[in-house]
């Protein structure tokens, strides 16, 4: 609850962001921003355009029109790796890890791509590269320990349960010190106990690591527990933007999102 007064510079901002899929408007003139230190929730019924927002912000999709600004600079249509190297890091609604790599290597690779020495320079300066790599492996293990996953470091990612894979995804993102960490439905498929852990970890990411978070979520319990502010989408349109308890009372939101009140106690 500290984020909102402490700092008001938006880390990421969408201006009239619009995305059409073969004539179907998935997102329509969407304006929004996330400020430093905030945890912002993005909710809405199935198919309302939440993942489309995430894909547009991270460069996975190019918008039909509108702009994406990161730290005030225009990143509209930038490649995903460029966006990622500016500290905009994400997880996926359907968990994505590299199945051929061990858990630790999944994280080390993310570190390497974000901030490691290039392949050419590590080829030319092997000693430097090896020292860097040693540090990256340490960092990866620290992150895994934070998520209580250290004993799985050398397993293949796909040998883990869904809940464990989620934790690895979070560890991978957090390891790279993101400026903003975008989580697309991290509670999907988690047991209630794991949802509790998720809530705790999201709080710790902000409070201990200073990470700004955009949380796309269906499970209202998570949204209400951690979010400073909630944005509601319906049919690709923003219908509300405000404090969680206020937004929940908004008649437009209730209409769009029938079951919001009930599922908040899920």
């Amino acid at each position: 609850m500290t984020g909102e007064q402490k700092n008001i510079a938006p880390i990421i901002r969408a201006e009239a962001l619009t995305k059409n899929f073969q004539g179907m408007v998935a997102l329509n003139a969407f304006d929004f921003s996330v400020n430093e230190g905030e945890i912002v929730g993005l909710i809405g019924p199935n198919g309302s355009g939440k993942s489309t927002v995430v894909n547009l912000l991270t460069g996975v999709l190019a918008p039909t029109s509108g702009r994406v600004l990161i730290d005030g600079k225009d990143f509209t249509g930038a490649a995903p790796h460029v966006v990622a190297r500016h500290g905009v890091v994400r997880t996926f609604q359907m968990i994505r890890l590299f199945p051929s790599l061990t858990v630790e290597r999944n994280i080390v690779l993310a570190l390497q791509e974000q901030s490691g020495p290039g392949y050419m320079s590590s080829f030319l300066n092997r000693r430097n590269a090896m020292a860097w790599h040693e540090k990256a492996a340490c960092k990866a293990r620290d992150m895994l320990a934070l998520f209580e996953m250290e004993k799985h470091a050398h397993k293949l990612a796909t040998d883990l349960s869904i809940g464990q894979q989620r934790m690895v995804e979070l560890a991978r993102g957090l390891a790279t010190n993101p400026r903003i960490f975008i989580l697309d439905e991290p509670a999907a498929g988690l047991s209630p106990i794991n949802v509790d852990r998720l809530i705790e970890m999201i709080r710790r990411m902000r409070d201990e690591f200073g990470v700004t978070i955009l949380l796309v979520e269906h499970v209202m319990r998570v949204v209400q527990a951690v979010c400073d502010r909630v944005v509601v989408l319906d049919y690709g349109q923003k219908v509300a933007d405000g404090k969680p308890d206020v937004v929940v009372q908004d008649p437009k939101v209730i209409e769009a999102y029938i079951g919001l009140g009930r599922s908040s106690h899920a």
Partner: protein
Amino acid sequence: MRAIFLILVAAATLAIVSTVFGGGYAINIAIVVCIYVILASSLDIVMGWTGLFSFAHAAFLGIGAYTAAILGRDFGTTFWLNLPLGMIVAGLFGFLLGLPLLRAQGHFLAIMTIAFQTIVYLVLSQWTDFTGGQYGIEVEPVAGFTTLSSYFYLVLVIAVICLIAIRFLTQSRLGDALQAIRDDETLARTIGMNTKAVKLVALAISSAFAGGAGVLLAYHIRGVTPDDYTVLASASIVAMVVLGGRGRFWGPVLGAVLLTALPEMLSILTDYKHIFYGGVLILVTMFAPQGLAGKFSRWRAR
């Protein structure tokens, strides 16, 4: 390290078997085996590790071979200069092919490699003034390695060096990046990887090794003719990788040894080599999509 030890053991075995048990014929086969081991292993960098199907590997083989032949003819350069130059020129072509290629996806990418392979073949066979057309170009044997067995040892040593280099490459951080692209390119991009650049590098490296193999082949058969560098030759390298097992170090080595040596040893197969390769390709994709190495590694986890 164990892999490098095994490479050396395998090379020593090949050297002993072919020199002790066979005369010139066996050594001939052994040289071709070494060349195809380089080819299959280098194709696997893009096909197995990165997941890009290429039917253009014989084009790079040809570019390397013709680079050596043309340089030797026009400038009298020696093997020791032609080998690295053949690799560089082939690598460069790999990079250039990659620029348009990597805009395409999946099947379309494979079709573009076939188109490139065809264009290279047409240039080699039609640009008579430069390439000698169907007659090709003669190549003088490597000074100091004019006997068959001495040339065999030279090829064997180079093949061992290539395999060790490929082993290092695939076990390095670049190897992880290649596997990441194969596994999930969107994810690779969102963790910050410039996947296009990595794929270009992989294609260039893979092509450079094929070019090196081409130089070795040109000096072995003491000449170049376009018909050695057709799409059928490309398809047989693909068959070796698929039979042996994609994305596993020993897979392409095994595939190259089997598919090069078997048709030579069973003489009936020689005339029907490409039918045999085709049959192998179909059977393997049906019954062992991970290849022979994949079958073995089921029994003992890596």
